[in-house]
């Protein structure tokens, strides 16, 4: 009796061990990281699921479904993948930019064997240049100075500016959805895109338990969902 119990226990153990070995895949272990850039400068976007992404396609494994790689606030991305060959595609209308050639449909082939870092050049409609933020303790306000450069100049593709925002948040993730204070200027009222000044009051709630705030500039481009952002800058209160 005891013997048969031992045998069956041993058999079960053996089966269990064998099963584990057979049917589990290893987790994807290759890191694919990089930035979305224009002339080497990362493009700031709103981060979060359902916001800005590009697609990676891998063929040869049954049904074709893209892997959506989401872009973080500072323009970086990272994905855990298997080694192999992928095609990278910018979906139409995603992001405050056009693919490098200005038209959609061109894919880039990426071969992964071991972790890799790669930047992708795009053509943003605008670039936020020389963004400087200054905090004034006297009237507890943040002043932003910046210029906007028009990058897409082709008359068929050019888009106007709908609104320019100055946003302020207690945490580094700051965008039109997550902010404590925001102020905006209508695109129509802009006379020049150079040396802009925008000012925002830091709300009183920021002074309770916070030593710093984060400020960021956002540009809503007419007819484009995703806004263009500057990098979020930390401001000591």
């Amino acid at each position, binding site marked *: 009796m005891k013997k048969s119990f031992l045998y069956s226990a041993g058999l079960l153990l053996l089966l269990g061990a064998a099963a584990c070995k057979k049917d589990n895949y290893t987790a994807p272990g290759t890191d694919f990281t990089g930035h979305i850039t224009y002339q080497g400068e990362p493009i700031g976007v709103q981060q979060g699921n*359902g916001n800005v992404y590009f697609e990676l396609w891998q063929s040869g494994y049954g049904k*074709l479904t893209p892997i959506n790689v989401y872009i973080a606030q500072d323009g970086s991305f990272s994905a855990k993948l298997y080694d192999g060959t992928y095609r990278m595609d910018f979906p139409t*209308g995603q992001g405050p930019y056009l693919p490098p050639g200005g038209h959609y449909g061109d894919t880039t082939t990426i071969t992964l064997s071991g972790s890799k870092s790669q930047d992708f050049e795009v053509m943003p409609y605008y670039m936020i240049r020389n963004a400087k933020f200054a905090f004034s303790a006297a009237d507890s306000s943040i002043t932003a100075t910046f210029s906007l450069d028009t990058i897409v100049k082709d008359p068929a593709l050019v888009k106007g500016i709908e609104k320019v925002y100055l946003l302020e948040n207690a945490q580094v993730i700051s965008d039109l959805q997550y902010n404590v204070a925001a102020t905006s200027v209508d695109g129509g009222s802009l006379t020049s895109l150079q040396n802009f000044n925008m000012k925002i009051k830091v709300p009183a709630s920021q002074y309770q338990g916070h030593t710093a705030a984060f400020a960021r500039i956002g540009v809503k481009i007419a*007819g484009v*969902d995703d806004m263009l952002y500057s990098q979020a800058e930390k401001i000591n209160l």
Partner: protein
Amino acid sequence: MKKLAYILIGGALCWSACKSDADFLQHSPSNILTDDQVWAHSDLVLSVLADLYDRYPDYNTQSNNATAQSLENWAEFANFDEAFPSEAGQYYRVQNANLDYFYPQLGYSNGPYSTYWDYNYLRDLNLFISKDSSATIGQGDRTRYMAEARFLRAAVYFEEAKRVGGVPIITAPMTYDYSGDPTYLQHPRNKESEVYDFVISELEAIKDSLPNDLNDRSRASKGAALAMECRAALYAGSIAKFGATKAAAMLPGGETGIPASMADGYYQKALKAAQELIGLNTYSLYTKKSDDLSDNFASVFTDKSSPETIFAKDYKLKSGKVEGWTLSNSPRTSQEEQQGGRLNPSLNLVAIFEKLDNTFAPPAITNTDGTPKLYDKPQDIFAGRDARLEGTVIVPGASFKGFTTDILAGWVRPDGSIVSGTKFGDTKDIDGKGEREVVGVDGPLDGIELATQTGFFIRKYMDPSVGSGRIGTQSEVWWIRFRYAEVLLNAAEAAFELGQPAVAADYLSQVRARAGFKTPLTAADVTFDRIVHERKVELAFEGHEFYDMKRWRIADVVWNGQKMTATDVVSDLSNAKRINTQVYGLWPYRYFSPGTANDGKWLYKVVKPSRVTEAHNFRMGNYYSAISQDILNNNPKIVKNPNQ
């Protein structure tokens, strides 16, 4: 002798066995009917048609899986600004900013990510229609059945175009030849305008083969064909007119978007179809209870003898086909089970109902000096407004099924401090002046499911009959797909867009007179904003808002992802483009001042339910729903929709 008998019996057995062998495999099946048998009997064909009717695309399969707004799917009405979902599992509807690109997607039973794309149903309809020449049933029945199937097919194409734009138009059943090459079955998408043209021409072709009467509103009639034609033409017209304002939603091949030059043609078709329907004189606005206009408006939806209903999805008690709208949404005071109160209309909606002098004003909660305005009765704040308000929404103090609702958020002391409670019908002894009820039996209680969290309950489609709130009985109130008032509003919009504001004013005023407005609108009053407003208040909770906002191309302006303030909710009420991203409520309080005349009077506060955390964000990619990757993989000729 005995031997001979055995031989004879054996031989007979063999002989009989051989004889029946020939028919052995020739039994006709007793559990299915063949095509030929069905198509020889009118009744059998009708039962095939009944199945096709049942698959009409206003809702899809089980309520838990479908995302279409319908009586079986109350929570879908809480996706935008019309209402708040007071059920813990549905709070996500007010906590996600971005709208999924697949919205309105099907449920998981149809594959996780797919919008409405039902070529199985279309194939069955095409098979049905292809029997026209071979059927041996009587000519009269056959003509009507074929017209009905073509009506349903037009409905499917219209519903698909509403969601994804142009789709492949398939009008004959396709069959695979097992050659290993399926490319001849793959069709590219037609232009969006071609789908609308197809729908309009089909309905135009069949309308005279359908009966023109009120006998059976769950089957297609001439009125239903005209109503659908009118709606489809209006949609196409507005997509053509406003499409250019959102160029990012247009595909170069015309699969989405319609050239602006076609707008007038569609508006003319819409107006013509509407006027033909009006000219039939079969339908009219419901006015049976003209002594109480709010009750009259509520009865439009529950009275099945209403001359206003053109085409409906019908239900019947004790038949297995019942709906649970009243069960889901009954206020606690009148509920028949331990549940209800789920769908809470928003202040955003309530505030836009006009005053009876044709002006807009939010509910007055403060006096001019900033002090709270006190009312003798809770309903007084809504007095003198559009009768449709109380026909659509159960406001504090209104009654349902003979029970007066008990909606009370707390007592306000003269210094502004509030005494409230934490449970339904909570009582407290305030300042030693005696026990008082501090929370109504119906709520409002923030974050407590099945209580009202906005201060309102839904009235539209609520069944006042006993048993409608019982799980075992439920309701047979029907879901109206087309009704006469919508046709009038369609006609008004088409006339306005064609530069005939006086005609538009007349149609609008007919609808408004039924709602209690004494002063008709003049031609100068009719604007785009006015038309948008009228549709929002007349057709709230009828599944129109999302598609209307899309076709006017203002969805991305109204649901722009930016948070609202309590001031935004009640300002700029007549503006069609006012931001409407978060649901607000209006809670009733009572004034605590024992011994004075003001004790127990009612005052109101604007509140945002704490479960509302995000602002609805409609993106360019939402103007046309995403086509599932499976469909794209199976048919490489299908092009993707923009911005996805």
